[in-house]
């Protein structure tokens, strides 16, 4: 019975060690924001964070995730107000919305390391995430908007600390 640390909470789950993390998250923990798209790591709909890195939960076994910090879309921010989530609304990104949890999680991993990415860096980082509605240009705009907001916020934060 693997123990998982998910969105800051420790949980014991009943699943064979080789069970894909995706299905444990969705069915046992009933957190359905993480989506099943291809089961082969080809589309990115199931993207979650493992110790801050974006991974495909359909390709990650429960035993590999045990002992690591797992973050899903539900845990990205307390009230859905991560700068990326706000930017996704501001740019009206989602159409059907099914891939967007994965898109946001993938983008969040990029911005946590690089809050000033170039367009090329965004494309390279996001190219594994399919959007069948093809909202790609809005995804790009939203990432740039969120990055800019994060830079402003951290600059303001620094000033505050300084004064």
């Amino acid at each position, binding site marked *: 019975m693997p123990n998982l640390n998910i969105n800051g909470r420790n949980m014991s789950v009943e699943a064979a060690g080789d069970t894909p993390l995706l299905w444990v998250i969705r069915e046992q923990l009933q957190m359905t924001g*993480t989506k099943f798209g291809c089961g082969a790591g080809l589309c990115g709909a199931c993207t979650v964070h493992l110790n801050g890195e974006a991974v495909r939960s359909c390709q990650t076994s429960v035993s590999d995730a045990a002992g690591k910090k797992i973050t899903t879309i539900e845990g990205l921010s307390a009230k859905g107000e991560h700068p990326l989530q706000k930017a996704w609304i501001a740019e009206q990104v989602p159409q059907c*919305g099914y891939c*967007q949890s994965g898109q946001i999680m993938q983008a969040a991993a990029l911005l946590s390391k690089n809050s000033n990415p170039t367009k090329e860096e965004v494309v390279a980082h996001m190219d594994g995430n399919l959007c069948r*509605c*093809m909202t790609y240009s809005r995804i790009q705009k939203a990432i740039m908007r969120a990055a800019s907001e994060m830079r402003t916020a951290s600059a303001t934060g620094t000033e505050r600390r300084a004064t």
Partner: protein
Amino acid sequence: MNEHVKNLTPETTDLSRRSFLVGTAATGLVLGYAAVPGIDKALAAPSNFEPSVWYSIAPDGLVTVTCGKADMGQHVASTMAQIVAEELGANWKDMRVQLASNDPKFNDPVLGAQITGGSWSTMMNFDAMSRAGAAGRMALTEAAAASMGVPASECVVRSSTISHPKSKKSMSFADVVKSGKATKTFTADELKAIKLKSPDQYTMIGVSVPQLDIPSKTNGTAKYGIDVMLPGMVHGAIVTPPVRYGATVKSVDETAAKKVPGYIKAVTLDDKTGTTTGWVVAVANTYANAKKAAAALKITYDGGPNAKLSSESLFAEAKRLQGLSDSGEFFVKDGDPNAAFGTAAKVLEAEYTTNINIHAPMEPMNATAEFKGDILHIHSGNQFATRSGAIAAAAAGIDPKYVVMHQMWLGGGFGRRLDADMMVPAVQAAKAVGKPVKVIYTRENDMTMDFSRPLTYQKVKAGVDADGKLVALSHDVVSAWPTARWGIPDFLTPSVDKKGPLDSFTVNGADFFYTVPNHYVRAIKNEMAHNATPSGQLRSVAPGWTFWAVESMIDEIAHATGKDPAQLRISLLDGKGKNDGGAQRLRNTLLAAMGLAGYGTKQLPKGEGMGVACVSSQERATASWTACVAHVAVAPSGEVTVKKLTVATDVGTQVNPDGIRAQVEGAALWGMSLAMFEKATLKDGGIEQTNFDSYTPLRMSQMPEVAVNVIANGEKATGVGEPAVTVVAPAIGNAIFNAVGARVRALPITAEAVKAAMKA
């Protein structure tokens, strides 16, 4: 039909209704159209003001619109709310949406069924939603005026408030609903007589208000079919045969599957609807275990009559059928092209093909079925509740009136969810194990069992007179017939030669707005393809291939007669006879796209070119006038880079401009994806592509610059989900020709084909 269902279990038959009855105060009154059946039941709801089936206003002032259309990302629920809010005078922050059940009262007011497609929704619901909104405003105003002791005619309604400027009195919608004094009812005739706002009075339509469904799609809370969880539910994974259609199960060996923990049983489908053939469901306590069990089942098949067929055999059969003089049925029969070819100065002939295409929405097909008493509950995101409910019923062996469909957000539709195949395994597994069952397709199931865009073969012959005028066009379209497969006569079209009904969803678009005096269009059913690759409606349906042929041929004619391809189109869009009105709008749209793209204004570098195309998609009667200028660069290897797509579309009236742009952006990229990157093939009766490694829709790195320009000229609102899909492939093909002189006639366009055509 659901009247009967309601009497049996009133508390569960209509979740959408229940959800707004719960949690409201016991004050207020409910009203309805006098003409709406079931009003007696609506009256039982004590607290909401419900001026039509389409929305209710709670005592807290929140307006909840019930959307009878499937929302698959086009934000149609939000659009319906926006149309209601315009006439109602509601504040956008007070608007909410919910999805309708399959109760017939939520049927499309024009189509008389619950079906979502054709880019029809806004066009066909605009009037009904407007009248529903206006009726609510009138009733609320009358009640408020009486309460305030002022004449209703002096009241102004804005931002969910009825105010009387002279006395400075006002009441909010919430106040009026709480007062319980809104009692006015409307008959159908009275509704019809309501004078709606004129466009210059709009304050909501034409404004890019935020789409109501978007926040829930950024935090994981939006619920799709795949997210449904029912108490006691178990899970089903399907095993599909190697042959797309026609296989039968000979034996199922469960020995190894029984060793999988949580395994319950294997259910071999007995599908009398003919939707599926040779499918088995492995049922287990979790989906992961169901998948393991599915993989462990040893199943033998009889491959059936299609087991040897390939894309090549389907193309060969199409060519054979086209060559027969008595094949097919006439969709257009104007003049006599064959006679005109005899006297034409120049005759051009070309074949255009498209391969099988797969919908592949990001949410794989799924359905959850639960038998509760006499009622079968289906939870699934579906585009055609009316038909899908009947298929679910047939799979269960019950009357359709006992089926309640619970609509969910659709994780992509694109026409795929018009079909009901996913209902069959869910229903039969639920029946077999006596528990609710959720069936989820793997991506491999989803791709190999798609109701795909059919493989098409088109032959076009054109005759030009000595002055270079196009005098004759004969166009044969050979394909599987996706809509005939439904078996619903109303969706078929009588042929003009009275040879019987034809599937106009294979030839729409070929009846274009160009003036050509002698014009034949034949719809030829490829029975072999129809049986081997059951086809479906893929975003834009026929115009996705007919305009590939027509708009490529128009370009070929222009080059053969030394004319500019755009100018030739403009001359053919003269608006004569039956083309009056539409032709002029299409011409103007083409001119707009040309202007925006800078078509013909500058010399492009070697290997680059711009191409144009213009379409009256979807159908003649429901067209959004759409034009595209594609700018491409072609390498000596034949590799094509699409640099920019400029799309202009005349939609008459735009409800939500930003929403329209989003649809057109997505549609244009779909068009490019189908033109360049998506190809499925049949081999030994099965679809060869199984996942996103071999079937490869456009990714972010392949995206060109897309410029979208929406023309809103005050005409009636038209649809935008599909037209831009159809215009892109021919624009790219024509641009390639202008860049390097290579004519490509097969989709998808490959570097090899371009290179071969460059040499030719």
